[in-house]
């Protein structure tokens, strides 16, 4: 077996049994990156030397009996997490040369537990996008392709497109990601892997480049539900440096994967049956519910009446917060500076921000600035915050009668790199099933469940109560077991 084919859990067992060393695992992944990254562009920065040093140190710790919970496991880090001494770009020109002097809490937690970092993976600029085509470091290619149209290059989804493509192509055993409106779950679904956005507050946001602070949440992507559970246990935990971090114990999420679904009540929201949705997505959804019934769960139709307002609400709230968060990129303290010969300070700000931000980021800053501006704040921003409260209330009421909710993860399979780029609103519709969990602060997991007619992966989503990721993992693992998803992408380590 090639070392890049291990699941994360499998690699940990092989390390424990001495069948493989962290140096061997790390080297195999670095070789795979060297072979495939020129095509996929999943990594922005590969830290090969540092990874091998970390792997050596990890093997030494293991030899001394000091192995941590993730000892020696090679991971990819989304380039939105600050990594001390390693360039962190957020996929933007404006941070193109930014080297943080500090480590984000989440990546620090992974290092504490013994993980090895292979490098920093690509993303939509400032995590704003659903296709990973807005990155200043070029688009990422999905390692999957259509059976009847293998030459059309597909997007991996976004914003965590580099994380998902790297894990699907076996260029890492798992990766960190972030999710503001679907940025973990949509790329996971497009790339045929699992990914969870935990409850808001479960993972510290400290040291993660901010997009929309009331929606942003870190989580893992990996090739199995259990691998996500293992990673989340290390990533999560209370952090006094994030005032929204939840001071709650972190459960053994991996143990919850084996709980089963017998007796659980699974909600099926009728508003998620969209007109014009491909029939195969509706069929897969029904198949997933049947799998859960077969394992002893009961499915119940529920109503989340404000669902159709979630996306427009998001596209007021998120740009508003982004326009405020991104005010810090001013060419003064860090990042790019652009000035003309006779620029005054204001001109320096304006030229820096025009040159440093790409079109989608500029668009969202403009929308956010507009909806927060005098005379429009109440009509747009305050209105959206009230509708957000109604969306959350829908979920609160639904969860009085069900233990989890199951929906499709995305309204389509991965699309071509040249498709859907003309109209921003069309691109925004990718997040129609995922964005509600961000607005309500709830955990949501994407799990690969099948293939479409062209051989592309499709995912289902499990949404749970706040801080009940354990039930989400139990339901996700039950779907995963029944789906027995074994398809692999054409572009992957060892196959090319």
């Amino acid at each position, binding site marked *: 077996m090639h070392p890049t084919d291990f699941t994360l859990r499998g690699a940990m067992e092989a390390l424990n049994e001495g069948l493989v060393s962290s140096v061997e695992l790390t080297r195999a992944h670095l070789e795979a990156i060297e072979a495939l990254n020129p095509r996929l562009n999943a990594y922005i920065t590969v830290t090969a030397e540092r990874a091998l040093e970390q792997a050596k140190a990890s093997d030494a710790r293991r030899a001394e009996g000091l192995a941590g919970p993730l000892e020696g496991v090679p991971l990819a880090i989304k380039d939105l997490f600050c990594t001390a001494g390693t360039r962190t770009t957020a996929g933007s020109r404006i941070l193109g040369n930014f080297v943080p002097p500090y480590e984000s809490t989440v990546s620090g937690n992974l290092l504490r537990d013994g993980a090895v970092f292979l490098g920093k993976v690509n993303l939509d600029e400032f995590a704003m996008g659903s296709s990973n085509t807005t990155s200043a470091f070029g688009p990422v290619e999905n390692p999957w392709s259509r059976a009847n149209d293998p030459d059309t290059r597909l997007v991996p989804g976004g914003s965590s497109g580099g994380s998902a493509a790297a894990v699907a192509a076996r260029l890492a055993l798992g990766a960190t990601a972030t999710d503001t409106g679907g940025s973990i779950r949509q790329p996971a679904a497009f790339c045929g892997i699992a990914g969870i956005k935990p409850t808001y507050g479960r993972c510290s946001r400290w040291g993660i480049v901010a997009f929309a602070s009331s929606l942003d949440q870190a989580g893992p992507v990996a090739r199995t539900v259990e691998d996500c559970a293992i990673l989340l246990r290390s990533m999560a935990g209370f952090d006094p440096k994030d005032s929204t971090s939840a001071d709650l114990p972190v459960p053994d999420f991996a143990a919850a994967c084996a709980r089963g679904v017998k007796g659980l009540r699974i909600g099926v929201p009728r508003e998620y049956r969209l007109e014009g949705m491909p029939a195969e997505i509706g069929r897969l959804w029904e198949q997933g519910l049947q799998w859960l019934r077969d394992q002893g769960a009961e499915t119940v139709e529920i109503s989340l009446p404000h669902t159709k*307002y979630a996306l427009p609400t998001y*596209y007021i709230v998120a740009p508003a917060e982004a*326009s405020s968060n991104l*005010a810090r990129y001013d060419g003064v303290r860090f990042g790019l500076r652009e000035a003309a010969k006779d620029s005054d300070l204001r001109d320096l700000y*304006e030229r820096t921000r025009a040159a440093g931000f790409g079109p989608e980021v500029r668009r969202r800053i403009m929308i956010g600035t507009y909806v927060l501006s005098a*005379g429009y*704040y109440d009509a747009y921003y305050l209105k959206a915050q009230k509708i957000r409260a*109604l969306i959350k209330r829908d979920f609160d009421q639904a969860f009085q009668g069900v233990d989890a909710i199951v929906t499709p993860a995305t309204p389509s399979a991965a699309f071509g790199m040249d498709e859907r780029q003309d109209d921003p*609103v069309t691109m925004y519709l990718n997040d129609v099933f995922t964005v509600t969990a961000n607005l309500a602060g709830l955990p949501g997991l994407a799990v690969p469940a099948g293939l479409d007619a062209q051989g592309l992966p499709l995912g289902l989503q499990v949404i749970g109560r706040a801080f009940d990721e354990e039930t989400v993992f139990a339901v996700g693992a039950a779907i995963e077991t029944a789906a027995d998803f074994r398809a692999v992408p054409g572009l992957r380590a060892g196959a090319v």
Partner: protein
Amino acid sequence: MGCNPGRAWGAGRGRRRPAFGPLSALDFAAPSGFLACCRHSPSPHPIRNWGRISNMSLDTETVRRVASLARIHLEEEEIARLQGELNGILAWVEQLQAVDTSGVEPMAGGGATMLRLRADAVTDGGIAEAVLANAPDRAGDYFAVPKVVE
């Protein structure tokens, strides 16, 4: 000009900015962004009639003003395209006006409604080199910028 948001746009225009950042709270009727709501006060020019907004689209002058507030330099040839894109997005979010939100408390955060406070104590300091390490320009232990005061 149905979309003239009123004098508030002009607040602060022509005045020198403090050197701490491109956006000033003076530009907004209410503080912007996350956590702002707990300090929210009614804007001086509230649009009470939501219907007025539904017929509205941004004209080129408003696009210029928003770019100016956001401190983003715009080339003339960018304005028409941006105007179309922004109006497309705004037309799409107009559907929110159909929702009855009377009596609904706005939801600001993603989690608990009360934020934790920490002790008002210094927890770090003495790391000027780390703070300045990524500065585009510096003068001693200071960030350097073009001359601000005449």
